[in-house]
């Protein structure tokens, strides 16, 4: 019987021809569907592509009408591209990798409106692997948790209800109670260990030996007697040494524990300072620190700029993983179980997706700071930076602005090639039309008109440092509230009073500088806001209300002190009890052991005739 059915080669050939024909007929559609599905999964919102055209023999791919929905605003596109011309690396396709050597981008527009919503159905959004929903909610939660000071002076001029400061809400009390409990517990455990290591039996026995030997010497005891006495002394000295070692170890341990407790007692003062600040907020006394006032005035606006920055940084982490260790991801959706797909990357091979170089012009619409024509370049866009081995870099500069002399340069690099990601982004905008700020806390509107914006962000691993600064020399001010009412006399601390005071302080300012700095861990950085406006307002407030603030602050401090002093005293008393109890006992034991040891050493020397090294037979 023949093994091969050679006549089947013809149908097999026909089958291959049919497959090739079907592929050439449907490949463009498949690419379009693939881009849409892959993009949607990566962005977490709809990605639409009007058409795709693959020219296999020219190794080029043309994508037209690409629209990527902004997941945070589904009726707006994150960006839209009229045409993308890609020169693709055919060799990489053999490895099932997509590598575009150059990409020419034409008609890139940001923030364009969509005719239909690009939001995913709830079920699909929940399962979208690259969905940014969770990252976005984490960042928003951070912003929500961030406590920005307020410029609320309503507590001034009123009888302050300090009784509202509850003992349960003061950190000092909880800390002092915990310290007292720790002190008790430590005293108990140390007492037991001191009792267990009690050297008194050894000391007593040594003293008895010393007394028994009295003035005995070699002549009175004879050779044999002196030898026995010397041996007894040596045995006792060994026992003293062992006992002293135990006491010394215990003393070292006890001292370390008591020192730790002492440091925690020192933290009580810091906790009390925090409690003063908490109580001050509770009775609505504002801080007169310029930084706090700047944060109250510009904090919300600064957060609006910083939240997207943090969001993009964290999304970069999600989409640009570090390292080349094998990774796992959900398998493809199909009728069969999806399973898990393992990836086994190797450095300096083709990454799964790579755009080596892309260049294009783009436009930002509207009449905002950034509106205008730009030229941008991006290199090294890849899903596997460690495999590619080069960082993603980007640079964009403005070629034409909507109005006036403009200079905008944005550069950055996202280096995820090593184990620790290192990202740097900077943007410098000079002579640009700046937006107006509503200072809700001051009932005023600040129009920055024309000025400069600088932004810089550096991130290494989990640590982030960023700065956003706005400067203008031609600021205009207007009141947002009722001008007549605002000019009328108002009670101290009322909203109208604050508005009037802030207005008097800042309305003559023409040079304004606002700086927001972000630093700390990427998951929960701290934010500092400073501005010369804050300084001016702080000065005016100090002049107007410092006596009143001091009076209320004194009341608040007295209330906090009265609530916490008992517990703090108790905690400090426990610490003192440790010093006078177990620690002192251990010191006394050491002294007793040293004393009796010296006595026996003296006796031993007298028995051996004071000749060093002589040992009786």
């Amino acid at each position, binding site marked *: 019987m023949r093994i091969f059915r050679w006549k089947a080669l013809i149908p097999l050939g026909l089958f291959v021809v049919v497959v090739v024909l079907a592929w050439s007929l449907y490949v463009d559609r498949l690419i379009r569907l693939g881009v849409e599905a892959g993009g949607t999964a990566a962005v977490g919102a709809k990605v639409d592509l009007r058409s795709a055209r693959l020219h296999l023999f020219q190794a080029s791919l043309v994508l037209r009408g690409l629209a990527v929905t902004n997941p945070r605003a589904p009726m707006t596109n994150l960006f839209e591209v009229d045409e993308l011309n890609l020169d693709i690396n055919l060799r990489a396709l053999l490895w099932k990798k997509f590598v575009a050597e150059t990409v020419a981008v034409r008609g890139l527009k940001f923030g364009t409106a969509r005719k239909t919503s690009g939001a995913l159905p709830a079920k699909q959004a929940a399962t979208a692997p690259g969905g940014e929903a969770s990252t976005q909610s984490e960042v928003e939660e951070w912003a929500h948790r961030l406590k920005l000071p307020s410029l609320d002076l309503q507590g001034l001029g009123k009888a302050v209800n300090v009784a509202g400061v509850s003992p349960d809400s003061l950190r000092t009390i909880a800390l002092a109670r915990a310290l007292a409990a720790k002190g008790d517990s430590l005293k108990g455990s140390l007492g037991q260990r001191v009792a267990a290591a009690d050297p008194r039996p050894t000391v007593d026995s040594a003293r008895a030996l010393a007394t028994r030997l009295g003035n005995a010497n070699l002549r009175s005891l004879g050779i044999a007697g002196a030898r026995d006495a010397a041996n007894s002394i040596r045995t006792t000295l060994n026992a003293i040494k062992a006992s002293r070692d135990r006491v010394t170890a215990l003393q070292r341990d006890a001292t370390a524990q008591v020192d730790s407790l002492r440091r925690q007692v020192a933290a009580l003062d810091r906790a009390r300072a925090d409690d003063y600040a908490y109580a001050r907020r509770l009775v609505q006394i504002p801080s007169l620190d310029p930084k706090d006032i700047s944060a109250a005035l510009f904090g919300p606006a600064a957060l609006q700029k910083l939240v997207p920055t943090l969001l993009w940084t964290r999304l970069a982490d999600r989409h640009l993983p570090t390292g080349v260790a094998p990774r796992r991801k959900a*398998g493809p959706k199909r009728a069969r179980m999806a399973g898990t*797909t393992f990836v086994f990357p190797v450095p300096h091979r083709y990454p799964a997706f790579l755009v080596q170089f892309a260049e294009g012009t783009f436009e930002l619409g509207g009449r905002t700071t950034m509106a205008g024509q730009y030229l941008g370049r991006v290199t090294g866009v890849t899903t596997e930076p460690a495999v590619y081995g080069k960082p993603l870099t980007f640079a964009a500069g403005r070629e034409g602005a909507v109005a006036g002399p403009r200079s905008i340069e944005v550069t950055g690099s996202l280096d995820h090639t090593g184990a620790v990601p290192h990202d740097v982004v900077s943007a410098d905008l000079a002579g640009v039309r700046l937006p107006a700020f509503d200072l809700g806390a001051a009932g005023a509107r600040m129009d920055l008109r024309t000025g400069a914006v600088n932004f810089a962000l550096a991130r290494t691993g989990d640590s982030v440092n960023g700065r956003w600064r706005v400067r203008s020399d031609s600021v205009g001010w207007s009141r947002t509230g009722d001008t007549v009412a605002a000019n009328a006399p108002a009670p101290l601390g009322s909203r109208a009073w604050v508005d009037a005071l802030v207005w008097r302080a800042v309305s003559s300012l023409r040079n304004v500088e606002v700086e927001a700095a972000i630093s700390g861990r990427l998951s929960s950085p701290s934010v500092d806001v400073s501005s010369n406006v804050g300084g001016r307002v702080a000065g005016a407030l100090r002049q107007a209300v410092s006596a009143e603030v001091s009076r209320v602050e004194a009341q608040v401090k007295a209330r906090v002190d009265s609530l916490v002093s008992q517990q703090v005293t108790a905690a400090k008393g426990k610490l003192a009890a440790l010093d006078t109890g177990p620690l002192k006992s251990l010191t006394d034991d050491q002294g007793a052991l040293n004393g009796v040891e010296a006595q026996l050493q003296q006796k031993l020397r007298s028995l051996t005739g004071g000749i060093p090294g002589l040992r009786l037979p």
Partner: protein
Amino acid sequence: MLFLKLIQQLVKALNSDGTPGQVAAGMALGSVFGLTPLMNLHNLVLFGCALILNVSLPGVFLGWTLAVPVGFALDPLFDAVGKALLGAPALKGLWTALYNTPVVPFTNFNNSVVLGSFVAWVVLFLPIFFLARHGVAKYREHIYERLRRMRFFQAVTASGWYSTYKSLTGWKL
């Protein structure tokens, strides 16, 4: 209708010109298309093999048809086997080499269900072959003559589709 086609498939395979060995080899080979997820390169290669090798094509289709529900049912098992193999530190070098070899990634071997089901098929190939060969031989020896006198069997074999197929292939009943 599907059931009828399955019966026809069964009848064609069991009564074709092929020897029990050819039918069994076809069934063992065809079962890969049912056991493993279909749209992968290894299935294209094995389909070419099924055409080129002198195995029973009805046997291939019968094996495929019978293995589909088995494949679906055993997916969790395949997934577990695939995960164990792909996650085994001792095999990391092999998978890394395969993953970075041209064309091989199109087999999707790095998917736990694909690898697990493919390994299961490799392991089950010979048992399926011997079981099927034994079954076909016994069927032809003992059951076939009794079956062909049954009206249901005659109805199935007398259907237009079957007649067309028979006339085209020349396989005898």
